């Protein structure tokens, strides 16, 4: 059996590409080796948050022009600005079908509140995310409660409050800190103090607990009409849970992205997987591609960990294996490589050039910009210097951009993956 499109890596990029291909009737498979960046992320999708000086970008689509002009190797230069918009429309549509509304602020960036009480510019967020609009809502009520689940060790509301108060938008707001708890939960076998966000999400997903949780929220929030919790109010049916809790408490309830595992990101991941599978895509989880064979400047086949020596074949391949921590890129003692196909990468050989001396350097770190080099069509170049026409690359395995300092991770993943899918669809149709 030969696929039309085989995608290696099932993160935001792989899933976007897969959904686009499958929705066009292509026989598509995704091989995914485990957790992806969404499981750690804020669950918001950034397009462009900061300029090269680190200043905040208000209108990201306007700024993309500058970005492309300053850096012609940037992935956005290859997708084109309309391409970015089209891909985001496509993916928000898919999220909507799966019951997740990703909101933006009239084409402007908005700010979500971080665990530390700093504000981060982003473009698309779930409607439950605690963002600066809350400050406006709070104008008439003026009290905000920042709550935690008692004993949850992965979030400390005092820190959120302390830094939030320093921001002009929140400085005259009264912030109330408090804890909620569930008494009958304290008797469980498991040490409640070891609960992670996922365990708490399960509590919220248990319908019969909701009235009690609502009581707890009312008690802890001391008259505030706006309440924030770390992001753990359910994974699958969080929308219903949230509206029920809002109804029961008579308060607005928001979420703050906290330490991994990221519930906000897991929602996105689940939604995209569902969408892909519903479109007839084949999602092969817990599997890893271990090698790829290139012959006559074409990928001939790949092999996977569990398939033994049986090659897996496809007309087209898409590499969306992520950056270093997902395994898409590898750092040797004094070189950077792409481990599956040995593709040409952009990166320094001298180790001391990979990083800056301060961890939180204003200029970030060069290694974040390392990755696979491609031509304008996202086709990479093999070790022997030849373009590989049936292989495309998308997402954070790409070079030419720094997702953190630019605030562009999600946008690049979605738009490059979408572009690769478009190319593949076109070529298959022309066949």
């Amino acid at each position, binding site marked *: 059996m030969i696929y039309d499109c085989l995608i290696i890596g099932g993160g935001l990029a792989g899933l976007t590409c897969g959904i686009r291909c499958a929705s066009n009737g292509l026989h598509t498979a995704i091989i995914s080796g485990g957790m992806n*960046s969404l499981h*750690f*992320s*804020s669950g918001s999708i950034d397009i462009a948050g900061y300029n090269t000086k*680190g200043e905040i970008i208000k209108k990201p689509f306007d700024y993309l022009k500058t970005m492309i002009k300053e850096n012609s190797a940037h992935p956005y230069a290859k997708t084109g600005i309309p391409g970015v918009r089209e891909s985001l429309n496509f993916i928000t549509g898919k999220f909507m079908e799966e019951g997740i509304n990703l909101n933006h602020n009239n084409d402007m960036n908005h700010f979500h509140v*971080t*665990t*530390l009480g*700093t*504000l*981060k510019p982003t473009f698309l967020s779930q409607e439950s995310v605690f963002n600066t609009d809350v400050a406006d809502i709070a104008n008439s009520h003026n009290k905000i409660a920042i709550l935690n689940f008692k*004993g949850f*060790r*992965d*979030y*400390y509301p*005092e*820190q959120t*409050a*302390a*830094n939030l108060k*320093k921001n002009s938008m929140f400085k005259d707001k009264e912030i109330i800190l408090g804890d909620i708890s569930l008494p009958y939960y304290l008797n469980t076998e498991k*040490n*409640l*103090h*070891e609960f992670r966000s996922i365990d708490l999400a399960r509590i919220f997903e248990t319908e019969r607990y909701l009235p009690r949780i609502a009581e707890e929220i009312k008690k802890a929030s001391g008259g505030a009409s706006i309440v924030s919790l770390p992001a753990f109010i359910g994974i699958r049916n969080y929308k219903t849970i949230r509206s029920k809790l809002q109804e029961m408490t008579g308060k607005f309830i928001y979420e703050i*992205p906290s*330490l*991994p595992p990221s519930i906000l990101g897991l929602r996105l991941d689940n939604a995209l997987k569902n969408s892909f599978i519903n479109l007839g895509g084949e999602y092969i989880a817990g599997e890893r591609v271990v090698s790829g064979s290139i012959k006559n400047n074409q990928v001939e086949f790949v092999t996977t960990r569990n398939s033994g020596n049986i090659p897996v074949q496809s007309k087209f391949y898409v590499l969306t294996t992520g*950056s*270093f*921590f997902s*395994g898409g890129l*590898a*750092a*040797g*003692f*004094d070189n950077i490589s792409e481990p599956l196909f040995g593709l040409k990468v952009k990166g320094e050989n*001298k*180790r*001391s050039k*990979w*990083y800056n*001396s*301060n*961890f*939180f*350097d*204003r200029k*970030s*770190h060069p*290694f*974040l910009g390392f990755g696979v080099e491609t031509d304008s069509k996202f086709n990479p170049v093999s070790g022997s210097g030849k373009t590989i026409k049936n292989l495309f690359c998308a997402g954070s395995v790409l070079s030419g951009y720094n*997702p*953190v300092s630019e605030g562009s*991770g999600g946008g690049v993943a979605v738009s490059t993956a979408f572009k690769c899918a478009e190319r593949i669809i076109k070529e298959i149709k022309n066949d």
Partner: protein
Amino acid sequence: MNRIETNVIIIGGGATGAGIARDLSMRGLLCVLIEKNDIASGTTGRNHGLLHSGARYAVKDHESARECIRENKILKKIASHCIEDTGGLFVTLPEDDPAYHRNLIEGCKYAGIEAKEISIRKALEMEPNLNPDILSALVVPDGTIDPFRLSSANILDAKERGSTILTHTKVTGVIKSGARITGVECIDLKGRKTEVYADLVINAAGIWGQEVSALAGIEIKMFPSKGSMLIIDYRINNVVVNRCRPPADGDIIVPGDTVSLIGTTSKEISYDRINELTVDDEEISILLSDAEMLIPNVRHTRALRAYCGVRPLLAVSGEAQGRNISRGIALLDHHERDGLEGMITIAGGKLMTYRLMAEKTADLACEKLGIKKECTTHLVPLPGSEKKIARKSRIKDFTGIPDSVVGSTLYRHGQRLHSILTKNKKNYRVICECEMVTEGEIEYAIKKLEVKDLVDLRRRTRIGMGPCQGELCAYRGAGLFQEFGGSTPEESVILLQDFLEERWKGMKPVLWGDGLREAEFTYWIYQGLFGMAHMDEVKHKKKKILNKDILPADAKTDNKKKKGK
């Protein structure tokens, strides 16, 4: 301005200063120990923690060798919870002079170090990762010693006996009355100044002893020798592995907790560079290729951190030429030497001779102060080492608490684990998974062990020292820090940032392999998710106060002159 009066001032909270504080407190004197940074943050926290048997010195320096074996035996008794009695091996490689093996056996015999020759097969059984081509092997009573735990236990004892510890407080000047020193001036993190008056000032500032003595107008000359080390994320050996040849670069691998340490390089540096401690790529290459000769698969093991320290070697009798550098213990009575009463300096030595150094210093101090009390530090165990707890009773006492948690806590705090793992479930929730640090341990450290920031907390508990280098537990640690009243919530975020910067120093030289993966992940969390770099205005102000140079102008020109020559 604050004013404190005491019997003795000790400058420097390394093992030496901590040991002196304990010794004098046990003899009934009240001390104020002043440390500009944290306990064990100087050279004491920057070595490979080898509890020498003395074999390393047995061929060339009998006096050091004898000192080592004597202290080795004492420390195994009084500091059992800080020591791992691993044993050590000296192995001869095909590249080495085979005659050295014999010389070493002779030297050990002469110094009273038990050294036993074993077959190569036996050595490989003991240490399966060892280079199979070795020509001979010798077993010696080397061990390992945790410098943080050791210093902290000494400090804890001194405090419990009435002494005062001022950490993050720097001595900036001396107070003189004629030809006599009567006290010191110091300044803390917040810029508050204090005058401390005492009958005697002890300079135990290690390599910085030159700076401190210069404050009193006294010249002593240190010969700084920098040594770099590499930590690998796997306990690749169970006993200390030494190369059987005259001491040189990259010839030792020391196991420690869950990791192994490759040591060390040696490079003379000029005195004005003792605070710029960076490890360069070349040193890392040397360490790896030398260690590979002893244990061939080191290179395939993930490197966790690289760091370096500066050996506090002192030139005796103020000679400028450096020929007469003492590698032993140097105790200077400035009354005798320079005609200045009220101050003594202790320098040189080793981590593992800290107790002996403290004893000698305290003897001199008592003599000067007319106190007739004998040293008892070799007899009385440190807090935490009072008695060994058998594994069985340990499990019985702490039913319901995972064995790994009990084990790690016992390992780090000895008997004091009873004040940490109380019945409250909250106390044993794990905050740092790599090192099994619990909330109870963190609370105990913040409240009892002079912890002022997250880096201090790491030294006391090992939080963030494991394979992930503090990815998630750093944040939790910061959260708990303010919860237990160690700081305000706002400050705790700044401490978190400092902590991550501190970790980065050791990580960046070893970024290959999984190092870069972890670094990328940590960066995404703290910068991508938390926006950490967008909030650093406040902190720089704070830092400036302490980084101000205290070298008097003339001491600096002096160093420049030396370089020019």
